[in-house]
């Protein structure tokens, strides 16, 4: 299933909305959007993942890339991810540097 990615700015927050499946085939689009988001200088990057039904380690790679691209004081928030996606993030220990939020 393809991935659709959109980016918008709401005040101090850059919002990335993902829908579909995030794997080795589709993660490139997410990666490019993170690159754009990092250039906006927002205080929060919010990644909405409620409509992501599957995420492989390629998605983790993009989240690590996001953490590396933005300044330390920028909050990266993953919002609405389903339980197995949250599990994948926690298994990598990324929940120490990325906020996982229900909403």
């Amino acid at each position: 299933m393809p991935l659709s990615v959109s980016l918008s700015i709401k005040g101090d927050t850059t919002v990335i909305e993902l829908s579909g499946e995030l794997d080795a085939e589709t993660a490139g689009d997410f990666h490019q959007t993170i690159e754009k988001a990092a250039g906006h200088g927002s205080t929060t990057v919010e990644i909405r993942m409620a409509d992501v039904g599957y995420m492989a380690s390629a998605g983790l790679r993009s989240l690590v890339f996001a953490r590396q691209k933005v300044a330390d004081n920028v909050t990266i928030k993953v919002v609405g991810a389903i339980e197995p996606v949250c599990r994948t993030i926690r298994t990598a220990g990324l929940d120490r540097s990325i906020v996982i939020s229900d909403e």
Partner: protein
Amino acid sequence: MAELARTPVVLEVPATIGALGDIAAFVLRLAGRAGLGRRASYRLRLAVDELATNIVMHGYRGGDGRITVRGRSGPGGVQITIEDSAPAFDPVAGRLPPCPGVPPQDRRIGGLGIHLALTSVDEFAYAHRDGRNISTLTVQAEGTDPCPPRP
């Protein structure tokens, strides 16, 4: 382990990123046939996907190759065997667990896919026979802890 079908169903695909979707569909069909729930089906798909991705990206390194996936399902469980003829690679030896002492953003992400795969299954075995890597993994309907200990 639940009793599995004697004869496996087989999928053979070229070792390309584009073929990963076919492998996922094959695996999810077997999971459905075994009556696995959403969580177990997800774990099975993730494990097979990560191992197959590793074969494409690091085994054949973008060169020509084939991946053979054999699956056997039974009530409450699925066993998948993944075979390739890339250079010998034991996923257990190549696993890279996240390092607790290093901030996540500074960690190497390579090898983490294998770690994800191995923490998603209930049983895993590797053999190298006749020039082929053979990984066999099993997922049961109620098995692995939904979230392994955090690194």
